[in-house]
C-alpha cells in the first residue's frame, strides 16, 4: 500500500496525499523532542539509582513497606493494552476505516489511560499512608520525582487524546489532525517504554532481596 517511508514509525502512506508528505518534517521533529524527553527520564532514573540505598532512605520506610506489586502489575498490563489499542487507532486511520473506528480506538486508549492513572493514584495514597512521602527521605524524593513524572506525562497524553477527539468532531480528518494523531501515537508508545523501565528498575528492582 505504502511506497514511501518518510519518517520512522507508522507512515500514513501515499494515498493520504498532503497529510502523508506534510508529516515528514513534523514527525521527525517530534522524534527529536522525544529524544530530549528521554534524556530527562534518563537523568531522573540516574538520580533515583544514586539514592536507592540505605543512606538515601535515611532510616525511613523502604520499597518493601510501600510498594504493592500486584497493583503495579495490573497497571502495567493496562498501559501495555492501551498501546495496543492506540496501534489499532493508527492502523484504522492509515487504512481509512473511517472516523468512527478511529475515535472508538482512541476512546478505548483514553479509558485505559485513565484506569492506569486511577490505580496509580490509589497506590500513591497507600504510600502516603505508610509514611513514604517525598519529604521523608532522599530516596522517596527521587521516587516521587520519577514515577509521578511519568504519571503527568500520561495525564497530558489523556488530555491530548481528548483534544484530538474534539478536533476530529469539529474539524474532521484534516491533514493537521492526522499528523497530530501520528505524533500522539509516538508519545503514547514512548510512555509505555518508560513505564517498562519504571516497572523493572523501580518496582521489581526495589523489591528484589
Amino acid at each position: 500500500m505504502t511506497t514511501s517511508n518518510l519518517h520512522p514509525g507508522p507512515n500514513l502512506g501515499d494515498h493520504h496525499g498532503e497529510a502523508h508528505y506534510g508529516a515528514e518534517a513534523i514527525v521527525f521533529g517530534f522524534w527529536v523532542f522525544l529524544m530530549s524527553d528521554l534524556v530527562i527520564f534518563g537523568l531522573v532514573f540516574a538520580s533515583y539509582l544514586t539514592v536507592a540505598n540505605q543512606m538515601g532512605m535515611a532510616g525511613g520506610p523502604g520499597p518493601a513497606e510501600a510498594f504493592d506489586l500486584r497493583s503495579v502489575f495490573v497497571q502495567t498490563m493496562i498501559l501495555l493494552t492501551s498501546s495496543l489499542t492506540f496501534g489499532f487507532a493508527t492502523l484504522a486511520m492509515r487504512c481509512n476505516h473511517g472516523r468512527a473506528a478511529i475515535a472508538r480506538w482512541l476512546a478505548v486508549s483514553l479509558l485505559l489511560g485513565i484506569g492506569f492513572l486511577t490505580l496509580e493514584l490509589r497506590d500513591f495514597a497507600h504510600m502516603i499512608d505508610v509514611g513514604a512521602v517525598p519529604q521523608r527521605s532522599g530516596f522517596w524524593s527521587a521516587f516521587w520525582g520519577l514515577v509521578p513524572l511519568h504519571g503527568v506525562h500520561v495525564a497530558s497524553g489523556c488530555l491530548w487524546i481528548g483534544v484530538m477527539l474534539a478536533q476530529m468532531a469539529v474539524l474532521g480528518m484534516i491533514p493537521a489532525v492526522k499528523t497530530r494523531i501520528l505524533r500522539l501515537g509516538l508519545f503514547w508508545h514512548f510512555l509505555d517504554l518508560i513505564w517498562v523501565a519504571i516497572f523493572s528498575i523501580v518496582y521489581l528492582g526495589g523489591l528484589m532481596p
Partner: protein
Amino acid sequence: MTDTLFGRLDLSSLSLWHAIQTPTPSELIAAGAAMAVILGGFGVLALLTWFRLWGPLWRNWLTSVDHKRIGIMYCALALIMLARGVIEGVLMRSQQAFGLHGGFLTPEHFSQLFSTHGTIMIFFVAMPFIAGVINYVMPLQIGARDMAFPVMNQISLGLTATGAALVMISLVLGQFSTGGWANYPPYTGADFQPGPGPDYWIWSIVLAGIGTTLSGINFAVTIYKERAPGMQFLRMPIFCWTVICTSIIMVFALPPLTVAALMLAADRYLDFHFFTNDLGGNMMNYVNLFWLFGHPEVYLLVIPCYGIFSEVIPTFSGKRIYGYMSMVYATMSIAVLSFCVWLHHFFTMGQSANINAAFGIASMAIAVPTGVKTYNWLATLFRGRVRMTVPMIYAIGFFYLFVIGGLTGVMLANPVISYQVHNTLFLVAHFHNVIIPGVLFGLLAGYHFWFPKAFGFRLDERWGRAAACLWIAGFSFTFLPLYWLGLQGMPRRSATFSDPAFQPVMWLALFGAALILAALTCLAVQLWVSIRNRDHLAVPLGDPWNGRALEWSIPSPPPAYNFAVLPQVAARDDFAMAKADGRTFAEPDAYEDIEMPDNTAIGMIVCVCATLMGLALVFWIWWLAVLSFAVMLVALIGRTFRVVTTHVIPAAEIAAAHRAWLARVQAAPAVSRRDETRERNRGRAMLERPTTPEAAE
C-alpha cells in the same frame, strides 16, 4: 507573613524601600538600578506612544513568525542585556579595585552581582545572540523559506524574553540569588536562602531553557528537512554545520539543566530532599546534572561562533575555506567530546584520582579538533587577499587571545593544577578568556558581517574599528592580570581582599574594564551614527562583501519569503561559484505563488503568561500562578483548532519585486574590494579572481 492575594510580596520587597530606610552606597546603587529599569521601561512605553509605534511594532514584530524578524528581536534582547551585564562586570571590578579591607558594596550585594552577571551573560546575552544569528542566517544559507516550525520559533523567543524579564524584575522586586550562575545547593536551598532569590534564578532558567530546547529542535529539523534542492549536507556552509552541532547540544544538554533546576524547586517549595544536607539528600547529584549541561553549554556557545569566523575569514580573504572536511569532522568531534568532560568542573569534590585522570585526559582531547580548526583558519588567510574590516579585526583578536585561553584551559584540565588554582581568579581569567574572544568577538563579528543583510545598510566602519580595538585592549587589560592574581591565591567571588600586593593589579584590571565600557559606548554610537547615515551606507543590492553563500544572492533586507524562486544548488559556496561562471542574476523561467505562515499573537500570550507565572511562583502568589498557567494552556490548545494559518503571496507580486531588483542590480556598477567600505559600495561586488594559483583553492 504570606497572604492569599499577594503571597510574600510586600512593601519590603521593593529595593527602593530599602534605600530610603538605609541609604548606604550599596543600597543606593541597587535602588539606582531599579530606577533605571523602571524609568527605562516607562521611557520605552512613552516613546512608543509618542511616535505612534504600537501598531507597527505589534504587526511587524511582536506577532511576526518570520525567522528574520525573530532573529533580530533575539539580537536586540541580547544587546540590551549585554549593557546590563557589562555594567555589572565593571561595578564588580570597581569594588575590587577599592576592595583592600573594604570597598563600597556589601558582600551580599557583590554576591548578587556576580550571580546576575554570570546568569545574564550566559543565558540572556550569549544564548539569545546565538539564537538570533542562527535564526537570521541559517535558513538563508540553506535556501529555505522559513524555519520548520515558525510558530514554535516565536514561542521560543517569548520564553527567552520571559527569563530575561524575570531577571530584570528582580532588580525592582526582591533580590536575586547569591548562589552564582550555577546556583549550587545546599547553599541555595530553603535552609540557607529562604528568600525569593534562588526562585528567580530557577524560573528564569527553566522557562528560558525550555525555549532553547524548542529552538534546538527547530534548528535541527530545519537543516535536516528544509534545505533547497541540491543543497547536500557536504555543500552546506560551515556555519550550518556548526548550527547542527549546536542544536544537537541544545536538544541533549538543556534537559539536565531543566531537571536540576526543577528538582531544586521541589526541594525549596515542597520540602523534598534531592540536594539537602540531611535525610538522604545528595548535592553531588546537582553538581553532576548541572555540569552535564554546563560543559556542553560552553560549546553550545562557542561552536556557532567558530561557524561565524568560518564565514568571515574566507569572505574577507577572498578564498574558500581551507580544509572543509576537516572543519566538519572537527566540529562534530567537539560536539561529542563536550558531553564527556563535565566532571572537570569538580575535580576537587572528592572523586577518585582515576576518575579525575580520565576526565582530565578527555578534556585535553578537545584541544585537538580545536587546533585543527585554528590551523584551517590560518591556512585560509595564507596568501589570501585579506581586507582588515571590522569582523576581521575581531577575528585577529580572537586568534591570539583564544589560543591563550585555550592553553590555560589545557592547564586547568590537569587535575593537579586544578587543585592549585581551584576557585581563584585564575579560573575567572580562563573562562572570560575563552568566552569573550571566542563567543562575544564571534558574535560581534557576525553582527557587523550580517547587519547589512538584515537592514540594507552597512555599519559605520570607523566607530566599528574603534569598538573592536577597544574590546581587544580592554579584554587584555581586564582579564590577563587575573591569571597572575589567581596564581597568587586571590579567591574568586570575594568582595574584598587583604593582601596589598594585589592592589596595583586590581587597578590595572579596572582600567581594562573602563576600556570595555568605552568599547560598548562605541558600539552604541556606531549604531546611532550608522542609522543616521543610512543613505550613504545603503547596500540594497545585497552583496556588499563579495559573499560566498546563498544569503548574499538576494536583496537586503530580504523579502519575507527570502527567495523569489528556490535556488538550485550546484556546488559548495554556490553563490561564489555562480558569480565566477556568470550564472548569477538571471531571470527565472517562471514564478510561483508562495504560501507563508500568518502572524500570530500566541508567542506574546505565552511570554506574558509565563512571566506572570514566574513572578507568581517567586512570590508564592498561588492563584496567579495557576491562572496564568491555565490561560497559557487554553491559548495553546485553542490555537490548534485554527485550520487556516497561512496566506498566499501571488506569483505576480513576487515577479514584480524580483524583476525590479534584478534591473537595479544590472544597472549598478560592480564595486571592487578596495572600495567595499566606501559609499560607492551599493551591494554589488565585482568578481575579482585571486592573483595567486594557491589562493584559487
